[in-house]
């Protein structure tokens, strides 16, 4: 039997289906960036990456620490004594010092108002792996989770792909600053019930990705009472906890349930060091569950995404260095705050507003006034112009399942000050151009009455401009190089 003939039939549904959700503009933007990345001198007209939630503002602090603590890398003359122990350390519970370090760090990020038990810290392959692990533990194929939208584009993959779960969005609206309300939760829940979908829980990101806002105490309490009433789970994705740079402060769900009458077996936290410490390359994700069964189960599952013992050892030393951590957190939020200010104020000056926010590595830009009409199609059209003409990879709201078109997520912490300047200048030019065009089109409307043919040709010109061959449409079949990869 020839293999190639029924090749696809021989693979699983998971290998061949689209449920990873990586065929959305969010990920297309990545491809556009990868094929033409901006560089200040080598490629000054390339695409600037503003779709990557990476915290590069404090690399220097980490670098300094690693150099000052060579023994932590276990492979220097100072650290080599530990080598034998580390190389063979294959206990999936993780190094004790590592778990203690992470628990302490999480407590510190939560304002020291709550303590985390090192014995409940479960390792996993990044927050991606942590979210998936929790889903594997809490739900069976066909079950569903409620997710307030807009939500992180990767959730489609992390929560659904291998687990076979479904996501039921809970629509949040700009009219109340995208707050999660009990009414919206109830509505989504009822709707799912009516469609015979078994809702197993709610997952929220606090601080929110893509909004960059933190949940207030009231919202959190109402969330907890909602899930408690329904006897379903609450998963809190707190991976951006330490990126909060001004008030209101971040409150961990662990703190909320301390003084609430609720079943803590329903509460689970996902954490990671990728955003807060800015080292996604270390692949550290954490599951912290208050439910013993879930903790034990996810610990067994951590075999599928363990952090190398060498990295654990390095991080244990780093996170247990109180002075460094304190200094790092202070400096990091100072730098994030400054960058956020520069960006949002710069945009305000050209008349672009954004949702007020105080956390995350991004903000939620309001481009609704620039849409031709308030539809997703118009949003995607605008996004294409931004990526192909303005050459900025920002992520459209529709890839975060936002129920209102016209919002874009802009990441601001993965570039240097110079690039920020270039990006802001490009946006300014674009908006100004748009205004001129508006004037022109108004004029052409005027002409339309007199001369129909003229206005038609001007429209066509505009379209051709959009389609010009040297620009890469995100939907064109760009060959998928091995470098094309989905990232946050």
């Amino acid at each position, binding site marked *: 039997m020839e293999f190639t003939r029924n090749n696809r039939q021989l693979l699983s549904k998971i290998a061949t289906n689209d449920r990873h959700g990586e065929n959305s503009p969010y990920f297309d933007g990545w491809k556009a960036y990868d094929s033409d990345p901006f560089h200040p001198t080598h490629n000054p007209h390339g695409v600037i990456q503003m779709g990557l939630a990476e915290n590069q503002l404090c690399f220097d602090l980490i670098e300094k620490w690693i150099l000052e603590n060579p023994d932590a890398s276990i*492979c220097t003359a100072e650290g080599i004594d530990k080598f034998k122990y580390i190389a063979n350390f294959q206990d999936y519970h993780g190094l004790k010092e590592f778990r203690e370090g992470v628990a302490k760090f999480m407590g510190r990020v939560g304002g020291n108002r709550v303590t985390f038990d090192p014995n409940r810290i479960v390792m996993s392959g990044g927050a991606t792996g942590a979210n998936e692990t929790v889903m594997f533990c809490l739900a069976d194929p066909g079950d569903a989770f409620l997710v307030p939208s807009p939500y992180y584009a990767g959730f489609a993959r992390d929560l659904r792909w291998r687990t076979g779960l479904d996501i039921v969005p809970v629509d949040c609206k700009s009219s109340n600053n995208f707050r999660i309300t009990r009414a919206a939760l109830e509505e989504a829940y009822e709707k799912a019930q009516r469609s015979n979908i078994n809702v197993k829980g709610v997952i929220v990101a606090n601080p929110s990705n893509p909004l960059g806002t933190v949940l207030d105490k009231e919202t959190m309490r109402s969330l907890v009472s909602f899930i408690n009433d329904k006897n379903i789970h609450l998963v809190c994705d707190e991976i951006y906890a330490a990126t909060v740079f001004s008030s209101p402060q971040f409150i961990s769900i662990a703190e909320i349930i301390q003084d609430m009458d609720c079943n803590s077996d329903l509460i689970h936290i996902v954490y990671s060091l990728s955003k807060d410490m800015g080292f996604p390359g270390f692949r550290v994700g954490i599951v912290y569950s208050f439910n013993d069964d879930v903790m034990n189960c996810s610990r067994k599952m951590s075999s599928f995404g363990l952090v190398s013992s060498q990295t654990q050892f390095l991080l244990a030393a780093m996170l247990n260095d109180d002075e460094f951590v304190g200094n790092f957190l202070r400096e990091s939020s100072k730098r994030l705050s400054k960058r956020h200010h520069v960006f949002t104020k710069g945009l305000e000056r050209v008349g672009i507003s954004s949702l007020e926010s105080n956390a995350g590595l991004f903000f939620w830009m309001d481009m609704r006034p620039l849409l031709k009409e308030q539809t997703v199609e118009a949003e995607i059209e605008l996004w294409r112009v931004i990526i192909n003409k303005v050459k900025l990879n920002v992520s459209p709201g529709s890839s975060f399942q936002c129920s209102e078109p016209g919002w874009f997520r802009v990441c601001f912490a993965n570039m240097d000050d110079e690039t920020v300047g270039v990006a802001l200048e490009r946006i300014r030019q674009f908006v100004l151009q748009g205004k001129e065009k508006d004037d022109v089109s108004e004029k052409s409307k005027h002409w339309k009455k007199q001369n129909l043919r003229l206005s038609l040709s001007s429209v066509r010109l505009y379209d051709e401009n959009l389609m010009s061959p040297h620009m890469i449409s995100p939907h064109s079949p760009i060959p998928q190089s091995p470098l094309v990869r989905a990232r946050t």
Partner: protein
Amino acid sequence: MTQTLYSRTRSPEIEKEIAGGGGGAAMRVIVPLQGVVQGRGGLVLGSIIPCALFYFLQFYLKRNRKDTDDQNNSNSSGQNPNPRSSSYGKLSELPGLTRSLSRGLPSPRSLRGPVFVSGRVRGIVKDSDSPYYVGLRRAKEDPYDELSNPNGVIQLGLAENKLSLDLVKHWLADNAEQAILRNGKELSISQIVPYQPFDGSMEFKVAVAGFMSQVMEKAVSFNPSQVVLTAGATPAIEILSFCLADAGNAFLVPTPYYPGFDRDIKWRTGVEIIHVPCRSTDNFNLSIAALDQAFDQAKKRGLKVRGIVISNPSNPVGNLISRGTLYSLLDFAREKNIHIISNELLAGSTHGNEEFVSMAELLDPDDSDRKRVHIVYGLSKDLSLPGFWVGVIYSYNEEVLAAAKRLARFSSISAPTQCLLVSMLSDAKFVQTLITINRERLQSMYAQFVAGLKKLGVECIKSSGGFYCWADMSGLIRSYNKKGELELWDKLLNIAKVNVTPGSSCHCIEPGWFRFCVTTLTEKDIPVVMDRIQKVSETSKLNR
């Protein structure tokens, strides 16, 4: 988008199965029976047939119950083989019930409904009772040390190699500072800290591919672009399982096999394992006839077989698969149109005179059947770095590679570890020395251990690879079954204080076989181990 989400309900086939399956079959039997009874048979048949039916029903239930018990016990990880089927039935009713309850009550706390987790969680409690894990735990809690804890448990159950760690350590002491810290001058933080390709950096893939062909004595060259790197061999195997089979499909796996396979292949994927028994009369070599038989049995059970998983060198037995058998395996896979996953984790850890043949060696570049072959490798065994968690998927199938790259995101290797290993593996001279010396030490350790056991009257299967002795202790067990085997295991653990892996944890079809992992020991530990085993073997013989 949201519309489609809502309209999607659970798979109709499965619901049908739950609702209909049994009922239909029963009706098919009862209706003709009624005809017989009412028509001619009268009272006699009318009473005999129901009695007979009842008897057979009892018999059937009894057999079935025994089956499931056996399965759970022999299942080292004890997990529910298919979390789907068990949970579907309950989900439709139970949550609704508690919801209505909690809504009606003023304080939800006063009546906490049970917390509904996934079907996968249920296997966990049972899992920790399996001898494999109990033994590992005991050895971890009370580890033997010649000086500080001479009465502790000696670990012979964990497949790790401590024989050549000194070599790796020396290399690190000499070179690693430069590898990671670049001599402390120009630490390239941008290679360590930010997002890296999730399936491993190209640099690391090149290094790993080079290492693999060096381990296999340059008989094959591996193409770095066919490599996907994962955080250990465990996720590598799981990812392949996810890619090649749907929940409810099955893989054929020769027994005895590595106890972790139940977790790696089955647990989260819902894929089933069909045992292909190998026997001591064949030196536990795989026979194609047994494979054929298992395939047919699976088919009869209505299972779709998607592939074969072989381990070469085998864990726990340590034997190698001959070139001839590999060719027959390929033919078998072609004939049945299924995949082959070849686990070659121990390729470099051979110690006998037999030749190791990689599956990769057999494949011609223009062979379209290459697409059904997938190799699993890792650095935990051959490089003695289990804590570094580096696993390798090497596949000839572009679609599998594409999916595996995406899936690698859930289990990728930390960048500083990649950085360090790139420089270690690129040092070809060091790698060669390591492989050669490690083989020598392995060989000497193995020979000494086998000789020691022989003195006690315990024979081992002749093997040429791996860290293990596969020993026949059936002469020491009181009853020739699993119970007898576990009694001996218990004595070894609690009286002799050595943790070994009983054959039943590896689903061995014959009782009385044990896996001794010799690479965790030093030479002077061997007499201690033999003394301890002797004590137990004497009492066992006396009791017989």
